[in-house]
């Protein structure tokens, strides 16, 4: 009887593991809010793959635990030697093969829409992002759409604005980012925009997105961008292990409500970037009580 203990033990552990994942959506551990025009395409693929894997995970684990329990060793009993089963082999080769083929075909349209350079929509706003160990430098032109922007991505202009870790755009704009890296591999990851792209040394890689929701408003009197909602602090992360400071390649995504709001911010940023006078900001007081 006690030989069946292992079967029960693994059954309980696996069940606990499965339940701890299954309750995820109930306690808020799920995909971040989607604010991307192509987000549903990505999420659909995600759920399709999750569905397949969950089904087969449950199937195989239930069989495994059942077999462990049912055929637990009995003293004096000899094991049977099984040479193989041709039809079964065929079955578990053809079925996964079919599923992989389905996924390969199902993802084509999403890939085409998001990653094909020739199919990218004409941008309303262009910026160039350079990753390095360990921060992001965003380069903005003095207008949202500089002339000949492919060339501008390679040859900076006199009037460009360099800003660490802050990505600004406006709701509904087709944004084109030319992604570069100064040193090793990095990956620009905007979870809410369902966008992830590796940055490769020596290459300039265009990516695009269109944000369907805004999270910030420019306050001209303070010169700061304020969150419209506390829960909408959208972060930028690096998704390719790039060294000891990988975790601190954090940035913030500011999606302005309107183009005008963005332009107001841009004007302010330009003024700061071209400052010919020391800042007149009063330095705030030391640590709080």
């Amino acid at each position, binding site marked *: 009887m006690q030989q069946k203990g292992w079967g029960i033990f693994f059954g309980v552990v696996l069940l606990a593991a499965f339940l701890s994942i299954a309750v995820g959506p109930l306690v808020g551990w799920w995909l971040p809010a989607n604010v991307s025009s192509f987000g549903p395409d990505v999420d659909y693929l995600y759920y399709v793959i999750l569905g397949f894997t969950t089904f087969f995970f449950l199937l195989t684990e239930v069989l495994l635990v059942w077999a462990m329990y049912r055929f637990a060793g009995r003293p004096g009993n000899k094991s049977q030697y099984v040479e193989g089963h041709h039809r079964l082999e065929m079955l578990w080769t053809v079925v996964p093969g079919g599923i992989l083929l389905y996924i390969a075909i199902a993802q084509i349209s999403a890939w085409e829409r998001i990653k094909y350079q020739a199919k990218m929509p004409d941008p309303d706003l262009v910026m160039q992002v350079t990753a390095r*160990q360990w921060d992001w430098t965003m380069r903005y032109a003095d207008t949202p759409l500089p002339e000949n922007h492919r060339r501008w991505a390679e040859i900076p202009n006199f009037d460009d604005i360099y800003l660490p870790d*802050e990505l600004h755009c406006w709701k509904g704009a087709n944004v084109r980012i030319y992604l570069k890296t100064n040193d090793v591999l990095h990956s620009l990851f905007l979870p809410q925009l369902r966008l992830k792209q590796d940055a490769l040394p020596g290459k300039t890689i265009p990516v695009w997105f269109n944000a369907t929701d805004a999270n910030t408003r420019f306050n001209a009197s303070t010169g700061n961008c304020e969150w419209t909602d506390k829960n909408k602090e959208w972060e930028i992360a690096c998704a390719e292990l790039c060294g000891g400071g990988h975790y*601190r390649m954090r940035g913030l995504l500011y999606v302005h409500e309107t183009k005008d709001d963005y332009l107001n911010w841009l004007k302010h940023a330009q003024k700061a970037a071209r400052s*010919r006078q020391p800042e007149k900001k009063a*330095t705030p007081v*030391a640590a709080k009580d």
Partner: protein
Amino acid sequence: MSSAVSFARMVRVLALAIPCLLPLLSGCDLDSYPAELTYPLRSDPIVTSPPGSTRWDTTAPGQLDMHIAHLSDPEVGGKTLDPAKLPAKERGELERALNEIFGTPATPKVFLKDADDEVKSRIQDLKLDDKTLAHGSIVYRRHCMHCHGVTGDGRGPTGPWINPTPRDYRQGLFKFMSTAVEVNNRKPRREDLRRTLEHGIEGTSMPSFSLLEEAEKEALVSYVIHLSLRGECERYTMEPILDGSGLEGSVREKVVELLGDFLHAWANSNAKGIEPGVYPYKEGDLQASIRRGFQLFTDPRGSASCINCHVDFGRQAPFRYDKWGTLVRPANLTAGVYRGGRRPIDIYWRIRGGIDPSQMPRADFGDQAAHKEQWRNNADPYWDLVNFVQALPYPQMLPEDVRDSIYGRRHEKTEHAQR
């Protein structure tokens, strides 16, 4: 095999596995130092005079200390002092004095028992109160220490492997300052350290920390000043003992005296910045200003004479020693990378104030009466240089003759090819 044995084994496996996993629940504590940890006394050589000669190669990764140890070789020609030679008695006294005044990583402070009101107000002006420093020390541990080290010596675990090497605060020297040039023993102002922290240093391994909280950034600035004060007091107490000139009073008296001087320098610097005055030009004047800047830059006998060090606009600048004993080179100004910041005001401060520790002198056009040539027609030579340096990486911004003399015909060809 009996079933009881295998059940007992299962229990044993679990009994072993659970304690192994328990530490994961506690997490690791990033936010405190052991109470008994003190700042270690300096052990790396003190560079009292870097070699004068220039070299073309740079230090190999991880070799900084070896490189500095060889600076005093006769063929290199620098001078260093070895703190290992400090007599045991003085060593003990210095350690006690520094710990008493500057505290430990867990409880950093700038504390003088019988400080007068002036010193107290300076400590307050520089925000070196215990609470801010303790906060700064924690943030420093998390974000800075792996490069800049426990004592701010620039020798954290990552430090030796990056070039340029992380700043060693203990010399009391900093590069990017907006402090008025009249101030003796110039130190950076709090705003300068803030700017470096927020924007990082382009072209080096110093990243931007712009997303830290306001209080964290302020506390870090205070803590950097604290480490710098401690390191400088340590260095200049060690120096007279090591070079044989000796101390007048006790070691502690020397440290206290030095601290007074350095606090004075920091407070003075913090209070007084370079004021650029009103920008003299209108938008349309830019081309003429750039041309004048070009002339000032390239005149080898002028008051600026930038071209003597920034050879070929920095494209062929040779390496030279800075005051830390590391090899650096004047910036390649055609690259469009500005370590001290790319705003016009940043470049103005570099030109007007110089970069003392790397031996970049300040451009000095003195008062307008003495340099009539450069100041005529309401021109401002400093802004002329700033405008030129800013336009230099962008050939299309330069007047045609200036462009040809910097980039030659080659430029036109590449422009054409890129189109």
